[in-house]
């Protein structure tokens, strides 16, 4: 779609972080994301692009390889990957596009980025760090908020009536207390 003239802002030198470009270019199993020959196969087989033509995974990876750090890590686009791995199956150069997106998601998670994708993934990880399991009710509320829940109106109510709504008060795993110090050490890079 972008080839057909959607207006992309010009890249200016100040936006480029060469260090980030180096990291990104070494991320792939194919040794370098520079192995990409821009054939567009990844975008062609993308299931998200199928229903949302503006979504272009090749453009995200090209931006990342160029070193456009803030633009890539702060964008909601990296969170729109469905992780269906169709692109990995078809990439002729072994770049493994959706795994590169996951790498970028990890980077966004480790710095403070405030968007819906980070909010949801953080809610998910927080649940694991607190209970050892996913508390679906809390992850949903922390991801879309009470407002988002209210906006679903009758839908949320139907789930509750059907007994399909996940439990808010849910037991975590039993030896979470023993795991927590080790988890903390790993997160601090000590253990």
């Amino acid at each position, binding site marked *: 779609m972008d080839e057909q003239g959607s207006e992309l802002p010009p890249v200016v030198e100040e936006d480029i972080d060469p260090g980030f470009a180096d990291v990104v270019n070494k991320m792939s199993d194919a040794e370098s994301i520079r192995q990409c020959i821009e054939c567009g196969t990844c975008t062609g087989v993308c299931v998200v692009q199928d229903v949302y033509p503006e979504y272009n995974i090749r453009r995200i990876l090209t931006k990342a390889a160029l070193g456009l750090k803030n633009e890539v890590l702060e964008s909601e686009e990296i969170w729109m990957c469905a992780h269906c791995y169709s692109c990995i199956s078809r990439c002729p150069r072994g770049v493994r596009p959706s795994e590169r997106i996951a790498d970028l998601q990890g980077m966004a998670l480790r710095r403070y980025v405030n968007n819906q994708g980070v909010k949801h993934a953080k809610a998910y990880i927080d649940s694991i760090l607190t209970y050892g399991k996913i508390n*679906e009710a809390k992850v949903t509320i922390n991801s879309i908020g009470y407002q988002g829940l209210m906006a679903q109106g009758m839908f949320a109510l139907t789930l509750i009536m059907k007994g399909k709504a996940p439990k808010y008060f849910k037991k975590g795993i039993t030896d979470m207390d023993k795991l927590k110090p080790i988890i903390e050490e790993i997160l601090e890079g000590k253990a």
Partner: protein
Amino acid sequence: MKYALYPGCVAEDSCKELGMSMQLIAKKLGIDLVEIKDATCCGSGYLHAYNRDLSLFLNGRTFALAEKAGADTLIVICSLCLLALEKVNTDLSSDPELLERTNERLRRVGLHYSGRIKVKHLLQVLVEDIGLDNIAKKVKTPLDLNIAPFYSCQLLRPPDMHSFDDANNPQTLDSLIKALGGRPVDFPGKTKCCGFHLLMVNEDIALNMSGKHLKDAKECGADCLVVPCPCCHLVFDMYQPRIEKKLGMSLKIPILHLPQMIGLALGFKPQELGLNRHIIDPLPVVTGQKTKKARATG
């Protein structure tokens, strides 16, 4: 052979009926199963991306618990869990240094992992270990239904992670449907994506993706869908009323969990398999009323 069951968070909570029906069919099929109740969440892809060492430790702990329970294979009933656990297991079993680093941490909670557990999805266990012929022999009530198999992304891809079916032209679920007396329905969305990962990020895109597959399956003559992953079930069943609203059309297509479909053929009652818990009521379809009536009228 002794199997450990990795329950998975969704199958324990909003899709409880999946865990229930899994236990029932395991008994009937003679699968010696011990549930690892205290396993942590696999982290799907998020935990691995956030902190790989943490993902290796928590999932390594799950493998160690399975070994401690005397199992050599870990059965998974969710495709996201499958890929996340397989990834970690490949890392740990192929890199002695990584395994040792993980074991140093596991030692502090009194555990050890040898690196030898096999991670398999239920579908893979049925095809490779139990055998479809043996399952067919145990069928009590053949499924007189047109069933659309939705394979789920992370069961098939990346193709170098799983080898038990062809990623581009998968057949296992089709063959299982036939073994149970049902008729598999070919439809364009068979190997596509339900959109689960986008549900909390951009519901609009997610539901457009899933809606398309449901509509296609229905147009291809499916009475219901079968899914090997509770995350697909969550989108297709729980969100179906919202999908219908978005598409502006009625779908009302029931979605069966893989063990529920098997359970029906093995003679379990719909209630026992938790079919009454679904948002889209499968009873009219599975009891044959709806389909027979439709065939009679036209």
